[in-house]
Structures are given as C-alpha cells and as structure tokens.
C-alpha cells in the first residue's frame, strides 16, 4: 500500500517504490479557488527539496508548489494543460502534478503523515 506524506506548504507525496507522485492537497485547492493554469517542470529536471517545482494559478493568485523531496522529474501530468480543473475536482488523484525519482529516501522522514497534516490544518483556523 502506497505511503502518503504531507508538507507544511500543502503538498502531498505518494511513494510508489522509488518513484514519488506529487500534488497539492484538498485544503490547498480550496484556498486557491478554481485552478486555471499549471506550470509544470521539464522532464529530466532536478528539483530540490523545498524549492519551487511548479506553479499553480487561479484567477486571482499564483502559488509556488515546492518539491517535498529532491529528485529527477520523470513525468508530468499533461492532462492538466487542457483540464486544470482536475486539480480542484480530484486533487489527490487525477489532479497530480509530477512524478519524481527519489534521490534520498531519508528526506521523507521529516514530512507529516496524514494524521499530523490534518491536525496541522485544523490549527490554521
């Protein structure tokens, strides 16, 4: 069963072997409103933990999406260019952003599990 972890910037990361799938959480998409455009990185690019990996835009805002861990971009969700609304409709599934080859699995230790993330979001109000 795949492990899902979360960051304080509301990204999720699902581990499938040595590949990680990254997206933004339901809380993030609610805050953003209707997503109109997603700027995804080039294949093969190396992203660093905590640095910008993608940009997600709504009508009135643009937010950086930070890489939860370092790694090489293996795939990006091309479907988002025609249907950015998938990020709102299914943020944890069809609305995924990119897949990374995990560089250092130890970086996952610092991330929150689902319970910790939910508590974190509660505390934001």
């Amino acid at each position, binding site marked *: 069963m795949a492990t899902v972890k979360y960051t304080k910037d509301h990204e999720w990361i699902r581990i499938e072997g040595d590949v990680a799938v990254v997206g933004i959480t339901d809380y993030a998409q609610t805050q953003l*409103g*209707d997503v*109109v*455009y997603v700027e995804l990185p080039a294949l093969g690019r190396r992203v660093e933990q905590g640095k910008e990996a993608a940009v997600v*835009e709504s*009508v*009135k805002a643009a937010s950086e999406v930070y890489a939860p861990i370092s790694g090489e971009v293996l795939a990006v969700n091309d479907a988002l260019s025609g249907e950015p*609304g998938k990020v709102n409709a299914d943020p944890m599934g069809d609305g995924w952003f990119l897949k990374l080859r995990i560089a250092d699995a130890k970086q996952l230790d610092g991330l929150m599990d689902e319970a910790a993330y939910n508590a974190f979001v509660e505390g934001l109000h």
Partner: protein
Amino acid sequence: MSEWSKALSGFARDAAAEATISGNRGLRLEDPLLFEQDEPGRCGVDLPEPPAMDRLGALRREGPIGLPGLSEPQVVRHYMRASQKNYGIDMGLYPLGSCTMKHNPRLNEKLARLPGFADIHPLQPQSTVTGALELIDTLARWLKELTGMPAVAMSPAAGAHGELCGMMCIRAAIEARGERRQRVLVPESAHGTNPATAAACGYAVDPIPADARGRVDLAALKAKLGADVAAIMLTNPNTCGLFEDEILAIAEAVHAAGAFFYCDGANFNALVGRVRPGDLGIDCMHLNLHKTFSTPHGGGGPGSGPVVLAASLAPFAPLPWLLHDSAGLRLVEQAAGPAAQTIGRIKGFHGQMGMFVRALAYIMSHGSDGLRQLSGDAVLNANYLLARLGDLLTASYPGPCMHEVLFDDRFLRDSGGVTTLDFAKALVDEGFHPMTMYFPLVVHGALLMEPTESESKASLDRFIEVVRGLAEHARSGAAAAFHAAPRFTPRRRLDETAAARKPVLRWRKPAVTTREAAE
C-alpha cells in the same frame, strides 16, 4: 462543484420577466462587435483615390487584412452603445483607494487640444516650440515647489514607469559611488508595482512587516538595514491610509546605512499644499498626474509619472533634460556636459505633454490656496466616512486616517458567507463603483475607500446610507441576495475562470459548417 457553478446556482432566474425581442432593455442597447457588422468595401472615411503607384514590389501586402467596413453613423452608434455600459467619475462616486478618482475638469481637455500644444512635433526645431518648453518648465517648477525637491524628471509615462526611473537613478548613484548593493526593502502593504519595479532593476525584494498600528515596523526595518541595502520603497501616506509618523526616523536610519529613500507618491492627494515630502527626508518620489492632478484615467491610461529628485540623484535623471541657458530653455538630448551621468532614455521623445497641459491648468486653477484646501477636504471626507461607518464596518486601524480609510471583512464574519467581493457587487447594484477590494494585503478582505475632495457632503451622506444599509443587510442572513449581485448592470457576474482557462483574446470568424457551405 466549481466556484463558477456555485455562483450560477445562486442566481434567480428572472430571464423570462426581462426578455425582450431585441435583447435591448429600454435605453440599455446591445450592439454586435465591429467585425460582426462588416460589409466589404464600406468605409466611414472619404479619402481621395491614390494614383496607382508601386515602389514596393514583392514587399507589398497581399491578401485581405480582415478589418470590417462600417459607415460613420454605425461607428458612432457602436461606441455610444458601448459607452453606456461604462461607469465613470462623471457619473458618480468612485471611491477607489489609492486611485484618487477626482473630477476631471473639461477646461483641461479644451486647453490640451489647442493646436499649439496638440499639433506640434517633438523633433521640430526648438526655436519653433518655445511655448511648449516653457509650459513643461512651469509645471516642473510647480512640482518641485510642492514637493520641496530641487530637481524633477518629467519623462516617465506613468507611476510604475516613474518608480522604475527613480530606482534606476538610485542604482546609478550607488554604482557611481563604487558600491554594489543587492536588496531593496518594501513594506508588505506596498502596491504590486513596487516589488515588480525593484526586480526589474535587478534587486532582491525584502519585505518589511507592518506593526499593530498599521505603520512600517521601525525596529524590523532597522534590523534589515545593512551595507547591502540599496533603498527602501515607502508609500506615504501608506496604503492603509495612515501617515507614517516615524518617517523622519526612517529617513535617518536609511541614510545612515548609506541607502536611498524612494517614496511612492500615489497618495500625495493627502499632503499637497500642506506637507512637502522633501522635508520628510525622501530622495526621490514619483507623482501621478492622473491621480493627484486630475488628468483623466481614460479607461486605464494614459498617465504621467514625473519623478522629483534630491540633489544626490539629480545628475542621473533620464534624458531629455530641460535646461536654462543664456538663450532660454533648451532640451538636452545627449549624455554630455551637465547630463553626462544620465541613466539615458526611458521612453521615446520628451514625456506626456498632453498630460502636462492638463495638470498645469489644474494646478493654476487651484493655486497654492486651492491646493491646500483640496488636501484638507480630501482628508476630511475620508475621516467623515470613518466616523459614520466605523460602528457598522470594521475599520482596520483607529483614526484619524489621511485621504483614504481602510476597512476589513471582520464585519462580514457572521453574514453566512458574504465576502468583500459580494459586498462590492451589491454596491454596484446601488449605483456606486466599489471601493478598492483585497488591497492592501496586510488585512483580510480589505475594503479601501478614497472619496477625494470632489465629493459633496450630500454625496457622501448618500453613500454612507447605502453602505450602512448593505452592512445591516449582510448581517441579516441575506447571503443569497449578495451572491446574486449585481443584477441591474449591463452584464452580470462574468466567468473569469473560463476566460483564464481557455483564453479568447481576439475575435475570429466563426468557421462555416459543411451544411452552410453546401447551401
């Protein structure tokens, strides 16, 4: 459910009651786009037939351009109908914070159109345009006197352009000292053009927080100052409508660190004729002639953004310079002599002459006494709004405010989902242009109101009555009505999500279907 479909579900379907055969509703007249009224060969301008002449050969344009042909009466109707769908200050209060939507006197339009101003070319021999040079010089002297600064760059085309000019001069001055500084400090409440300008000048932007009183946190500012800070960009009064009362200490700290003090002059309407920014220790400041000095906003522009400069920055002012010499006024268009250290040109030609004429006419109409009265009335009007609305709406900071007053959306907390946006749209139905929304970013759901001195007390009282009524309505469980607003405008809420997801940025001829082609 997308935001758009949620919004749609809130609208009462009264289409049947309002249906007409034509789609017009009384005086509210619809019109197709120009391109949908095309008749090939039709023209609204009569021009003589040119002789057949072709020295262009293969470089001649072949094929149709695609421009529609209409007659003059059709074009006039098209734009008359379009104009009826617009709101302007000529029609009513436009309380947009930091925009200074004041009355645009028609005398200024008349004078700007005198052939001696409108029909002159920037590259005519200077001896044939001495009046134009004198006008620019006269305006420049007024601006220097009003701000208490020794020099002014007249050419920037708008406020943001003036900011760029000022920051370029600052960077040039620092480089001339043999230094390199990387950071610019910008308050979190700053207008977006400030950080955008700093970045365009090669600087990293470092934000300064506001304190609990809505002013720049002086301690935080001092902590951020250092040998690598080039400048601070400050708006005074700030975008919360408050005078930065520690400004003298700020200027001192900034200068002690070897940095420059850029002042965003968008809010000069609160101070004109009463306080000179030069006395506050600033090094440069842009003025918005289209705000403080009444040149019309024209649906988005043109503006004019002259920049007043301290002696330390004057040598770097952009070209052209206007100098007095033994022969009179002279435009200096090269980086030589006194202008040897100029940053160079930042636009074509000499500046927004048409706006100079308007602004000077406005300034002369007011004079020093009128300008002083103007800023007093502007500040009085804003404080009156605060006094008469502060019990129902939530003012972000205690008064007195300057020329604008900031509220936030705490008063809408128990409204069952009425947001600042919904409140603004309801105000539109009441016949007012909304105040500035969601700016500055330092409070939640900001509502920034700037009435200006052009509003009578009666006008303000009407506005106050409506705002109070809406605030009470919002708290009485009428969220659905607010979500449905505006109902009485030429168009109701528009789907901005679709516009951004699938941008359609020009008209295109609809494709002919196979069936149509066959007929």
